[in-house]
């Protein structure tokens, strides 16, 4: 290797900033074992303490809105389901829901219940992935494996209902796919699995919260108070762990007939964020049981009595595992999609975490970011390419025009 190959000076700081700024910067990513997706975190540290943090997620841009432009809505739903690998059902449901609201399509009750069931099962498996990932980043492999063991029966149920473990393709315009109706035997199996999950999860939560070493890493670390959560618009369990009592499920008509409680904690630290999600799994299991009762044996799951046509712009919000998911589009005369906009919960949650990890130890800061449950590939919604390399500010009007 030549001396030139070993010259890293271009990567090192120079000039005034080098004298002015922190002891050092530790850049992590885009390729890193703690990051499940490509994002880069720049931690500015003094000794082990994080003084500032910047996150970048540009490489994850996939241009899905661009692909959807001009696509028939039923075909577009195949794409929207693939925005996220974990909350695939949430994206598909919201996409379908947007058109259904605009075209006044009526949904059979059993179909609504199956959609809710799928979403709650997805929430359980997503939260259990989150707990496993947080434990992995924490360095506690045993808890991580236990969490994955609890998740497996949930994946089996999703497979049993839909025939797939990732993209379930359950909602369609007018209801759900007929193959996903809940027969008696399926319903009983789900109820049994929910009971087992309940028992296992309660034991897990008890052990997790009683573990002194784990709690010493999580309690009082990455504290996001209610004010900060509001200021940076934290959403979902991340916000609810900081005392914000809001969940889109309260406003969703689909959940009107269900009996459930919102999990809200006040501590706002990493322990609270893990605990919130663990408790939400119990709530989801409760909702899933009710959904099974409502849908079991009912074969009326799809309304085919509707027609595609033009639709004014519609906005739809639902509560996915990570928080608020927004989908919006309009349909032209031929039922083709125009101006699709997706906003996922990670954008604002990550902005919150970027702030709250300041003051923590570097290793704890990585856990803090993990506890907001980032999902990057679905969160990166637009990219601006300026071939002339100019730096400029973009107005709201620029963004509305698509950055041109």
């Amino acid at each position, binding site marked *: *290797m030549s001396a030139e190959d070993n010259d890293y000076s271009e990567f090192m700081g120079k000039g005034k*900033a080098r004298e002015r*700024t922190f002891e050092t910067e530790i850049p992590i990513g*885009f390729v890193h074992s703690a990051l499940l997706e490509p994002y*880069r975190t720049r931690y500015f540290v003094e000794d082990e303490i994080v003084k500032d943090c*910047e996150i970048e997620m540009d490489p994850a841009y996939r241009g899905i809105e661009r692909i959807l432009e001009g696509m028939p809505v039923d075909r577009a739903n195949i794409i929207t389901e693939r925005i996220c690998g974990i909350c695939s059902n949430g994206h598909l449901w919201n996409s379908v829901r947007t058109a259904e609201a605009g075209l006044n399509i009526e949904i059979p009750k059993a179909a609504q219940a199956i959609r809710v069931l799928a979403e709650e099962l997805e929430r359980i498996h997503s939260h259990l992935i989150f707990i496993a990932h947080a434990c992995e980043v924490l360095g506690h*492999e045993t808890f991580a494996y236990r969490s994955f*063991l609890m998740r497996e029966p949930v994946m089996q149920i999703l497979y049993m209902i839909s025939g797939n473990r990732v993209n379930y393709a359950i909602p369609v315009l007018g209801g759900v796919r007929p193959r996903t109706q809940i027969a008696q035997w399926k319903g009983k199996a789900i109820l049994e699995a929910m009971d087992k999950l309940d028992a296992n999860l309660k034991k897990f939560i008890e052990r997790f919260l009683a573990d002194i*070493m784990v709690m010493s890493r999580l309690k009082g670390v990455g504290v996001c108070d209610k004010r900060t959560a509001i200021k940076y618009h934290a959403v979902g369990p991340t916000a609810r762990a900081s005392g914000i009592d809001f969940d889109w499920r309260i406003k969703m008509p689909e959940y009107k007939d269900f009996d459930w409680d919102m999990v809200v904690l006040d501590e706002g630290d990493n322990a609270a964020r893990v605990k919130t999600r663990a408790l939400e799994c119990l709530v989801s299991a409760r909702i899933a049981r009710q959904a099974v009762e409502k849908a079991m044996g009912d074969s009326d799951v799809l309304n085919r009595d509707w027609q595609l046509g033009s639709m004014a712009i519609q906005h739809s919000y639902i509560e996915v595992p990570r928080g608020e998911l927004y989908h919006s589009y309009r349909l032209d005369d031929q039922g083709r999609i125009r101006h699709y906009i997706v906003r996922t919960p990670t954008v604002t949650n990550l902005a919150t975490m970027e702030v709250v990890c300041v003051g923590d130890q570097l290793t704890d800061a990585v856990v803090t970011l993990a506890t907001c449950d980032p999902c990057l590939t679905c969160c990166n919604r637009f990219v601006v390419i300026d071939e002339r390399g100019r*730096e400029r500010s973009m107005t709201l009007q620029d963004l509305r025009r698509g950055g041109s």
Partner: protein
Amino acid sequence: MDILDAETLAGILVASFGVPMLAISYSVLLPGIVRKIQARIQQRIGPGILTPGFFAILKFMFKHKPVISSPMPTLYKWSPSLGIAAMYFVVIFLTPQWAGILGLGSLVAIIGLLKIEEFVYVVMGYLSSSILSVRLPYPDTAKGSKWSDAHRSTLENWGSVRMWKMIVFSSLPLYVAMFIPVAFAGSISIADIVNSQAGGNCFIFRVPGAIGAAVYFLGYVAILNEYPFSIGKAKADLVEGPMLELASSWRASYYLMRALVMFAVSSIFVTLFFGVPLDPLNGYRIIVHLVLVLVLPALGAVLSAFSPILTFRQVVPVSVVATVVGFFTFVISMGVGG
């Protein structure tokens, strides 16, 4: 001792070459045993016993050698070999055959050699610059950054800084615990410590010995950089820290070094606390020794399976408490000893 005596010379030769060979053969089993225990705790099957320690080394030996990104690649690549050499001497100095030669069969020599192994990580950290952090060719400091011109450290550099701190804090209990049997025997000579426990009078079965063993155990986990004391190479941020750029046969040498450290530090424990030396000329003793060597790795596997990584916020108090306990036990042992 007359080293020109044929029998003594043969003993020294066996201790110098036979024992290290035995140590290498046995130590490659230890990572597999550790991984198997952890896997069973985690309700997994886990790898085969020979996979992590033997087949992994064999596999890496024959892998393509990539160019290592380091300002001093030769020193970086050979650093683990330095650790292997240090462990070679630790193992032979533990044998009764080396007890009387130039005072090398003493605790001071062994501690000095262990320090070399610890320092190897610091050296590797400063000499490595992987693509995972600073060298990633992406213009992330170009626009919108508040700190576009900050000094930047690689993950390995930061690992090196942490390894420095770990030398200061976390291995201290290990060295304090080593001196508890010294206080009991009234000598730093390995032979004297072993002789003071002759006739089944094992130091570990006394109260100070048991406390000392517990303190030593914490130090053992720390010197191996295992969970919960793996902050120097914490996967959460540093991935592998100083070892990031080690590939192919160089990584194989690192795996071998780690396995040997596991064996050597456990072997020191068996010699000091059970009074069973690594005697190649005594079949019974060596079998007992090898069986007892499994104790620390097995306990370490259990601790690691149930622990998260501790940050310095937790490592420092744990280390201070363990060192203070070790020190008081040392003082008590001086009264018990003799």
